[in-house]
């Protein structure tokens, strides 16, 4: 049992060094890649949605939060958000493997996670509304908590998202809409999915919005910190739209983009850039992360020794 | 004036009601109506409506108020009088089809009644609707419950062929005629004297033989009692063959026939009775011993049996049943005197003769049994 306690990644905050951010982001990347391998090997059933290529925003925005009181609502593609929030690698892998020592006892699986103030639900858009309700409750408590609701550009097809933005703005709820615009929803490019401009939708609800590239961790962290602080201080919603590229498939094997497109995407992989920024420590970090993943996998594959 | 007539037909008011009741005529029969004028009120289980004329002319009611008709049936006619009469003659029998509203009984009640051949109109419901339990109660009270189901009865045996034949014959006789019964008190002094006289000569003569002998003298004068009504025709027996009821020790009923009774002496009659009775006891009656009788007699001499009514035999007009001999006190000028009597019942087909004729027959029989003593 104590060995498993060590199977976690160190989370980061506003004061962390680049190398620490890199370790966390690298850990997320490795986890997701390991997961796809396990599916390919037939060791896991069901489905999963990896966030390969989108690690920067997860790490940066989460680092801007106050983990002692802030809440996070994520969606189907939530492993990065979850690991950035709490770093619990083994419980997450165990959950996806359906083990009773997983985050939710094997009942929730990849898309339905809950730990401390982190919640996720796999039905697109609905969790955003729940996040607004959580923000209301926290506002009532007057503890200054901010609720971060993760949503992708595809989520902006769901009506409940607009209902939520309307209510959140009307009621001045302390919620941050953290949008990961990766340009694709399942297999449909955003331009075939959304009319008009995504960020301009926030204007309609009187929600201040900032668009950032999302590829540089420090830049993203700064923008996120600014947004989180504003939400906390002003007690009204804000939106942060970060651009990123989903490098993996939607779930497994359902990537309809052509090889040239994918190659170009990989060429500008923001994690590679962050690795360079991490400098000399990068190699050691890679090895540590790899070892962690191996141990975690071994533990997840092991028989349940204890209840 | 146009000969066109417009027919008001019962409309469909709701999806589930196939009948409509004309509750009230708003406009009188024979009065003039104009287009749009209300003429009748109708009703179904779930809806009511007012019907108006679609034509101008004379109104003639097709059905009286309160009638329930199927959808599409004619309720009224509007037009000139002559044309309407013609249309009414041509209208199919929907008027006759103005059926009564379905009797209020549940489906289970109908099914149970059908199984027992019961007319629901005979069943008194508890409440507005005849329910299965009402029918069941009716059946139980009548005692006509399903034979096999009732634990109060146990199956004993199959009925014998003889029993079934007797039952069949009796049933068919009952259904063939309209039977009723007349009771007559016969004076048995004459028979007693005859029997005593025969006994003095060493011959045992049963009362049955005396009765048959007397019938042989009486029946010729009463042709109606020797007839049969069938297929609208009257047939008369040529001979006076009389059957008598004989019961074997096993309880089987037989009806051997003494033929040509009117030609036989009392002694011969007695010998025939004895011969036939013996054969009946042994179950040895053959074809010529039975059948074709024009009359039947039956005697029950068990003491205290005052009278009984016998069931008619097929193809016979009447049957005479004689009860036990009893002593009766008669008051005469000379004082009280006892004399033997017995009650005879004659069950006869009223389609062939009436009670007065049968009474006369009985009086004649009584005289035949009690001839004036020789001076």
């Amino acid at each position, binding site marked *: 049992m104590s060995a498993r306690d060590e199977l976690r990644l160190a989370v980061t905050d506003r004061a962390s060094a680049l190398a620490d951010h890199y370790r966390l982001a690298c850990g997320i990347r490795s986890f997701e890649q390991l997961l796809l391998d396990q599916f390919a090997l037939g060791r896991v059933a069901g489905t999963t949605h990896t966030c390969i290529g989108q690690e920067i925003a997860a790490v940066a925005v989460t680092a801007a939060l106050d983990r002692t009181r802030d809440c996070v609502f994520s969606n189907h593609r939530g492993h990065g958000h979850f690991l950035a929030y709490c770093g619990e690698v083994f419980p997450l892998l165990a959950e996806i493997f359906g083990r009773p020592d997983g985050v939710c006892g094997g009942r*929730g699986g990849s898309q339905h996670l809950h730990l401390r103030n982190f919640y996720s639900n796999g039905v697109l858009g609905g969790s955003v509304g729940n996040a607004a309700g959580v923000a209301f409750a926290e506002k009532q408590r007057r503890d200054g908590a901010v609720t971060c609701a993760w949503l992708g550009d595809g989520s902006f097809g769901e009506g409940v998202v607009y209902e939520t933005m309307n209510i959140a703005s009307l009621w001045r709820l302390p919620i941050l809409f953290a949008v990961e615009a990766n340009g694709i929803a399942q297999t449909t490019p955003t331009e075939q999915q959304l009319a008009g401009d995504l960020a301009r939708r926030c204007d309609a609800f009187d929600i201040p919005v900032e668009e950032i590239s999302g590829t540089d961790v420090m830049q993203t962290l700064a923008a996120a910190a600014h947004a989180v602080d504003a939400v906390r201080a002003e007690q009204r919603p804000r939106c942060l739209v970060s651009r990123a590229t989903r490098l993996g498939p939607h779930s497994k094997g359902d990537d309809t983009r052509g090889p040239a497109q994918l190659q170009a995407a990989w060429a500008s992989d923001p994690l590679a850039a962050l690795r360079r920024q991490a400098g000399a420590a990068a190699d050691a970090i890679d090895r540590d992360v790899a070892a962690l993943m191996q141990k975690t996998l071994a533990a997840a594959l092991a028989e349940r020794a204890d209840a | 004036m146009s000969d066109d007539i417009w027919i008001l037909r019962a409309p469909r008011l709701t999806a589930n009601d196939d009948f409509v009741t004309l509750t009230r005529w708003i406009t009188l029969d024979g009065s003039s109506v104009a287009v749009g004028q209300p003429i009748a009120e109708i009703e179904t289980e779930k809806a009511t409506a007012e019907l108006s004329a679609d034509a101008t002319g004379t109104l003639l009611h097709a059905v009286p108020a309160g009638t329930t008709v199927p959808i599409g049936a004619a309720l009224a006619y509007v037009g000139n009088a002559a044309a309407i009469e013609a249309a009414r003659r041509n209208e199919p029998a929907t008027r006759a089809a103005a059926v009564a509203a379905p009797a209020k009984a*549940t489906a289970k009640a109908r099914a149970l009644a059908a199984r027992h051949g019961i007319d629901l109109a005979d069943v008194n419901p508890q409440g507005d609707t005849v329910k299965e339990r009402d029918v069941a109660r009716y059946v139980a009270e009548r005692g006509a419950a399903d034979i096999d189901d009732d634990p109060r009865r146990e199956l004993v045996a199959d009925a014998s062929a003889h029993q079934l034949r007797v039952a069949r014959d009796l049933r068919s006789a009952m259904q063939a005629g309209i039977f009723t019964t007349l009771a007559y008190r016969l004076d048995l002094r004459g028979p007693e004297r005859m029997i005593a006289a025969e006994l003095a000569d060493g011959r045992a003569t049963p009362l049955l033989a005396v009765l048959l002998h007397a019938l042989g003298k009486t029946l010729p004068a009463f042709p109606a009692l020797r007839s049969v009504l069938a297929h609208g025709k009257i047939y008369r027996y040529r001979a006076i063959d009389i059957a008598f009821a004989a019961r074997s020790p096993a309880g089987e009923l037989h009806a051997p026939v003494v033929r040509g009774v009117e030609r036989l002496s009392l002694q011969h009659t007695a010998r025939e009775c004895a011969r036939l009775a013996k054969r009946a006891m042994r179950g040895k009656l053959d074809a010529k011993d039975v059948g074709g009788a024009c009359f039947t007699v039956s005697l029950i001499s068990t003491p205290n049996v005052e009278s009984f009514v016998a069931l008619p035999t097929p193809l016979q007009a009447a049957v005479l049943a004689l009860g036990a001999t009893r002593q009766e006190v008669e008051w005469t000028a000379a004082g009280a005197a006892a004399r033997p009597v017995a009650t005879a019942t004659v069950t006869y087909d009223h389609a062939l003769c009436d009670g007065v004729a049968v009474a006369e027959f009985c009086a004649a029989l009584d005289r035949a049994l009690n001839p004036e003593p020789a001076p």
Partner: protein
Amino acid sequence: MSRPTSVLASLNAGLRAALAEDARVIVLGEDLLDPYGGAFKVTRGLSSDFPGRVLATPISEAGIVAVATGMALRGLRPVAEIMFGDFLFLAGDQIVNHAAKYRAMFNQQVRVPLVIRTPMGGRRGYGPTHSQSLEKHFLGVPGLWVAAPHPLIDPGALVRQAIEIDDPVLVIENKIGYGEPLRDEVAGYETVRIADEQAPFATVWLKPHAPADGLLLCYGGMTPIALEAARHLRERERLDLGLVIVSQLAPTPVSHLDAIMAGTETAVVVTVEEAPPEGGWGAEIIATIERIRDARRRGAIAYRRVGAKRAAVPSARALEDDVLPQVGDIAAAVLDCF
């Protein structure tokens, strides 16, 4: 304060008491604020007396229930009103995939003490999309309670009971039923109330003084009609029926039905609902009773379901009356068993 005399007054009083006694209670929905006080006036007076705790929302059924679910996750006790039960499906995903599921899929780590109140039912000529009884589609959703008040219980107490439960409860009110006067008992019957830990929302069992010829089961808005049908059958057909008025629609109150079956020798069971019976509440009740009958080795029971015709509820009153179940339909169904 005098005791409320109508269903509506009782609901209002119950919400008022809940707001007063539990600071975690929030009431939210469309047009709830005074002076309007809600489309059916259930919340009248509450926003004035509890400012900040009675919230008017935009017309966003999904958003309302989503936000209420989030509130419940964090320990508040929200009571969300959906103006017409016909609109419930707009919030269907939130009810079924969010509120009802969080507790189980998060492995019992959270609770969602959410109450959703909504009026169902027709008989006001409101037309096909404002007259339905859709609660049957929410029966059997794991994690979701469904309850329905009626005039023979305390509706306000039922709502408070729902608020106390730590799981989502869908409270089905009735548009016509709001005006019904409350009663503790009905002449000619002994009133038995059954509630237990497995099924906390009480069932009312009206036992006739004579031995019952059969059982009539109903809930919510059909209660007055069922009572009228029972009266008609007693007076005109000499049939004495026991009436079972259920207030817990889901999970099925098996223990209540078992207790009733233990206490009666009925061979006729007729269920009454305002929705079309196909795939509905009556079917569930009959399956449950049949299972109980079999376990208790009792004789055969004749079952009938009374409900609406399988059609959209028409707007014209006469047409609506033809589609929705009436006293005559109940009487005919009962008689058909005799």
